[in-house]
């Protein structure tokens, strides 16, 4: 048999039909639904009088629009409230499992899916959200789709697809202490660019990936889309299986045994060939900080804001000039000299318990710099509860951080959590696009530890200098 990659295997396992025109119909095992990209899909289903094929293959939750303060009093913003109510009406009408706003298990879809055991190795998972790539951490083929495709999955449990190419990322060497998955992701995107993975599914390999926890792998796969790949994959191993066992929606007893046997076979064959290969030595990597309005514009904490005069093409120079103007930065400025007015810790990229522990370890016994606003938003109610059980909330509050209720929050600011024009923010989220965190806002992407270090010093600081506590 021809050697196959992990992606090839999952693809083959889900192929329903190949049409005469060459397009393939792929079966979708799991569908995550949230309030922003689903209303028009349910409307389409209703208008065409189509039934929903498999309600229990869906898990739904409101996350983008939800307030992170005083939620129990309801949603004050009318347009946000209407969208959440629309989701509640739709899931009720179609019998779709839903985690209500005040349920402890509510949170960001990409945090909730894995937490509940909805995300399983070898499955196909979709959601009307580009960061669905997160679930690839489990060895699932997971990708973001548009609303028309959401409707297509609701109606047929399948999607017409074209096969992507295989891209292997080999991280060479061990990651130095104080660095994590976010640094791996940003360094990779800095290398290949935001279109580097277009048309590909990326498989992440190498000792630095094997050494990551499941949460770290989720952070890495989450950022695949920022490298242009719709999906990222990490082959499942004992770390994966230990994370899964006992979660509410994970199979039990005999089914667990059968599943485990299958999951252990989910890896690329030794002789499998990849269309594209990228290798990156991470053994001397330093903490990463973005300086521009695209995640590919990144350097490390020892670096400087680059000079557009050194750009290799006129187009790049124009783009960099525009980015520096938007970001209010001068070429040659030391990254460490960039002062911040805000810090955001949270999102589907870095809103899990290990992220909060990493940030709290830096915040402990220190104070947020004067005049700086710092927000911590847990990725789910369960993350929040766990953090509170460990006393992390008290560490953050004592240091002057705000401690909020779970949701997407300031990653994209659809709720009230937005930055004012010109405000510079160190953010653990995934996008530093113009206007992403609020009109005219200036976002620098970093790891949770680096965000906390920026919060307590008021400028970018190498988190390794603050490790080991105050």
């Amino acid at each position, binding site marked *: 048999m021809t050697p196959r990659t992990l992606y090839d295997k999952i693809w083959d396992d889900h192929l*329903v*039909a190949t*049409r005469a*025109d060459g*397009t393939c*119909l792929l*079966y979708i095992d799991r569908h995550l639904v949230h309030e922003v*990209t689903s*209303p*028009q899909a349910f409307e389409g289903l209703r208008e*065409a009088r189509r039934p929903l094929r498999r309600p*229990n293959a869906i*898990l739904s939750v409101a996350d983008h*629009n939800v307030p992170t303060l005083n939620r129990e009093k309801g949603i004050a913003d009318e347009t*946000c409230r*209407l*969208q959440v109510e*629309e989701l509640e009406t739709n899931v009720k009408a179609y019998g779709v499992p839903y*985690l209500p706003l005040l349920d402890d*298990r509510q949170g960001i879809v990409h945090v909730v899916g894995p937490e509940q055991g909805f995300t399983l190795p070898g*499955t196909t998972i979709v959601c009307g*959200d*580009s960061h669905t790539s997160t679930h690839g951490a489990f060895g699932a083929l997971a990708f*973001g*789709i*548009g*609303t028309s*495709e959401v409707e*297509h999955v609701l*109606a*047929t*449990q399948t999607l*017409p697809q074209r096969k*992507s190419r295989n891209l292997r990322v080999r991280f060479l060497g061990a990651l130095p202490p104080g660095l994590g998955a976010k640094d791996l992701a940003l360094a990779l995107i800095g290398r290949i660019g*935001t*279109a580097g993975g*277009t*048309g590909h599914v990326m498989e992440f390999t190498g000792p630095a990936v094997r050494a990551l926890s499941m949460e770290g792998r989720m952070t890495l796969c989450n950022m695949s*889309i920022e490298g*242009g790949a*719709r999906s990222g994959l990490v082959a499942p191993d004992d770390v994966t299986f230990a994370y899964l066992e006992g979660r*509410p*929606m994970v*199979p039990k007893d005999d*089914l*667990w045994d*059968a*599943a485990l046997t*299958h999951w252990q076979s989910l890896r690329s064959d030794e002789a499998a060939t990849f269309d594209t290969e990228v290798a990156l030595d991470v053994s001397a990597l330093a903490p990463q900080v973005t300086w521009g309005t*695209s995640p590919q514009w990144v350097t490390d904490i020892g670096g400087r804001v680059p000079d557009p005069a050194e750009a290799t093409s006129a*187009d790049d120079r124009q*783009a960099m000039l*525009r980015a520096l103007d938007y970001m209010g930065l001068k070429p040659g400025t030391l990254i460490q000299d960039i002062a911040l007015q805000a810090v955001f810790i949270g999102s589907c990229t870095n809103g899990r318990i290990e992220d909060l522990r990493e940030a709290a370890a830096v915040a402990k016994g220190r104070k947020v710099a004067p005049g700086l606003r710092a927000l911590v938003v847990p990725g789910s109610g369960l993350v929040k509860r766990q953090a509170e059980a460990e006393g992390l909330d008290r560490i953050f509050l004592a240091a002057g951080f705000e401690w909020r209720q779970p949701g997407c929050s300031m990653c*994209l600011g*659809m709720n009230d959590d937005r930055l004012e024009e010109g405000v510079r923010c160190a953010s653990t989220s995934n996008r530093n*696009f*113009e*206007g*992403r965190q609020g*009109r005219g806002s200036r976002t620098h992407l970093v790891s949770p530890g680096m965000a906390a270090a920026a919060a307590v010093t008021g400028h970018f600081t190498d988190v390794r200098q603050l490790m080991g506590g105050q």
Partner: protein
Amino acid sequence: MEPFTTLTGIAAPLLRTNIDTDLIIPKQFLKTLVRSGLGRHLFSEIRYDADGRERPDFVLNQPPYRAASILLAGPNFGCGSSREHAPWALKDFGIRAILAPSFADIFFTNCFANGLLPAVLPMEAIETLATVKGPLTVDLPAQQVRGGGHTFTFDLEPARKAVLLEGLDEIKRTEANLGDIDAFEARRRLNAPWLEIHTQP
């Protein structure tokens, strides 16, 4: 869906690289429950100032381009979020074809569901077309863009082309495979019973 065959219209040049979907339609406009009405918010943050007044230097605010039905753009157009609000906003404004050297995957797919043509042309061709005075013609059956004496051809997968030319409803197409889907599910229940969801969250 309205079929796409041949389009002749004004082409607006917006030759930036990495135009992301946040820029095409910012988050505050994603709270809608319908697909229509987003055209006036297209490129909102670069099209209007903080007080909501049009910025005269933005291309879509300038006379011939206000009526543009074609957009000329730089590489990696539509990167970022999966929001289908981006093609909805472009279409509602009146754009039916986007010509760029490359597109992000999700945006590219979303276009076809909405009768929009994303055509890939080399950057040099885009730059040439941006200098053409007067309308361009996008001829989908011939896979050509013509204007100012220039003709450029573009590649497009036949299945994608058919969807646009015939205005096909993808769900209706898939319903022809319902027997295959039933059979797949029956096989899966036998071969991978752990994938059935018995436990609600």
